[in-house]
């Protein structure tokens, strides 16, 4: 039971990550790989506050994690988008690797061993279900907010910007500030997810936020359908549920590990050829 609850909570948290990454990449057209680092900023901010100020309210610390991720993302976007859109890709990678290196080498973050003993705010038998409810609600809220953003007048502006940024700007639209706002919202959500993660698992380590995590989130987005509201949700569920389903087959570990790699690679390849728009994506023109 606990085991299933933990999987469900992971799915909720990764739904937030995939959905917000899709907002930034799929809708905003902002090429960044650094989404996990904002997840990390949120997780470490909330975790450190919880460890160092055990009396501080958990909600405030999660919000602080979100805010820290937003501030970091605005700094990154504002400085690199000024140079060019492509520069963001490079800058984000550098930012991710640099910050991870910093976390590994600082003492108060727990170094490479990670930050442990994050106090549990909720105790007792209902801890799991309570966290599941909170994370599930948070994921639903994120998907709902993203849906509101990409529909209506703002969504219209986003598609126009993605179609023809020059013409869009020449009509009086401030593409730069829109991109920074989209980036900040997406990264802020990742930061919030990080805060929830830190409180539930009570442990964060730098390795969880490396480029492999970037690849995992990207796979969720691509598999589910980039630029669709519900695609990343489907992607997150699939990518987290399939490995668990495989575990139920009770295969020996020596087969298990390569099996998962093979299945993912095949899945991604199959989708690239058969359904490049993803599971939720429509094949034709999105109108």
């Amino acid at each position, binding site marked *: 039971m606990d085991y299933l609850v933990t999987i469900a909570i992971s799915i909720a948290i990764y739904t937030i990550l995939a959905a917000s990454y899709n907002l930034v990449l799929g809708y905003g057209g902002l090429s960044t790989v650094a989404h996990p680092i904002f997840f990390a900023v949120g997780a470490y901010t909330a975790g450190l506050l919880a460890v160092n100020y055990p009396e501080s309210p958990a909600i405030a610390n999660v919000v602080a994690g979100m805010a820290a991720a937003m501030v970091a993302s605005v700094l990154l976007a504002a400085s690199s988008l000024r140079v060019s859109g492509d520069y963001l890709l490079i800058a984000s990678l550098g930012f991710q690797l640099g910050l991870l290196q910093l976390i590994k080498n600082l003492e108060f973050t727990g170094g490479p061993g990670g930050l442990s003993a994050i106090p549990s705010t909720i105790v007792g038998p209902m801890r799991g279900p309570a966290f599941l409810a909170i994370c599930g609600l948070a994921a639903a809220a994120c998907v709902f907010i993203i849906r509101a953003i990409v529909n209506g007048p703002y969504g*219209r502006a986003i598609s126009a910007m993605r179609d023809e940024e020059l013409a869009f700007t*020449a009509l009086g639209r401030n593409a730069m500030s829109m991109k920074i706002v989209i980036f900040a*919202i997406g990264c802020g959500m990742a930061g919030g997810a990080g805060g929830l993660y830190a409180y539930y698992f009570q442990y964060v380590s730098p390795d969880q936020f490396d480029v492999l995590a970037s690849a995992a989130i990207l796979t969720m987005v691509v598999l589910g359908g980039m630029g669709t509201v519900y695609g990343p949700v489907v992607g997150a569920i699939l990518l987290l549920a399939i490995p668990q389903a495989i575990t139920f087959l009770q295969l020996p570990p020596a087969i298990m590990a390569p099996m998962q790699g093979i299945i993912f690679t095949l899945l991604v390849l199959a989708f690239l050829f058969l359904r490049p728009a993803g599971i939720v994506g429509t094949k034709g023109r999105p109108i």
Partner: protein
Amino acid sequence: MTEILRVEGLQKRFGGIVVSDNVHLTIGAGEILGLIGPNGAGKTSLFNLISGVLRPDAGSIYLRGQKIDNAPLYKRARMGIARTWQNMLLFRTMTVMDNLLVGPRDYPGESIVRLTFGRAHVRSAEAAMKGRAMSILARMGLEQTAGSAVVDLPFGQQKLIGLARTLMNDGDLLLLDEPMAGVEGAAYETMQRVVRQEAEAGRAVCVVEHNVSFIRDLCSRGIFMAQGKILQDGTVEELISSAVLTELYFGV
């Protein structure tokens, strides 16, 4: 005639190519200025400099007497500089109506803050803009295309949509980059009529066009440009009969 745009000593080069060589220019309200010259003369670059896509190496640009050298592209649009593009740059995944709706100078929907805290205002602004868009489309006889994907329209109608989107700006200055290129038949007549109406409404219009009869029918004044220089500025009759133009443009 009220001066809308004044360009003084505009200078711009790309490496060895001079696209704007000491360009001086004024356009008044209600005037339609024809800008002609061979390919590569610097006509589009001049539009890019005026609208703020490019920064000049030297020189100044004044809109209604106000210097706008430091205003970025999007702010110049908000000041009322509206332009079209030689290759249209329509929003290709969107409908005709949505293409137009992104065009107004003030678009409350681009701010999350205004969307969240000023919903009523955003809604009424949207409704007003939809009304304006429909009336612009109706002037072009295109109101029934409002819900169509813009890429499904024939080329001439796409050109008209490019103009319609720009008209949503309601600006004082209209820069049209080869609006007639590839356009014929009914769309040609419509384009000509709408451009004339816009000037009659008091806008300053500058048209880059290779179609000499279009220039002759429409423009009060003409400028001939080659290699970034304005070689002649006068009435259209003078321009068309000019030896310089005939030699450089028609390659005689």
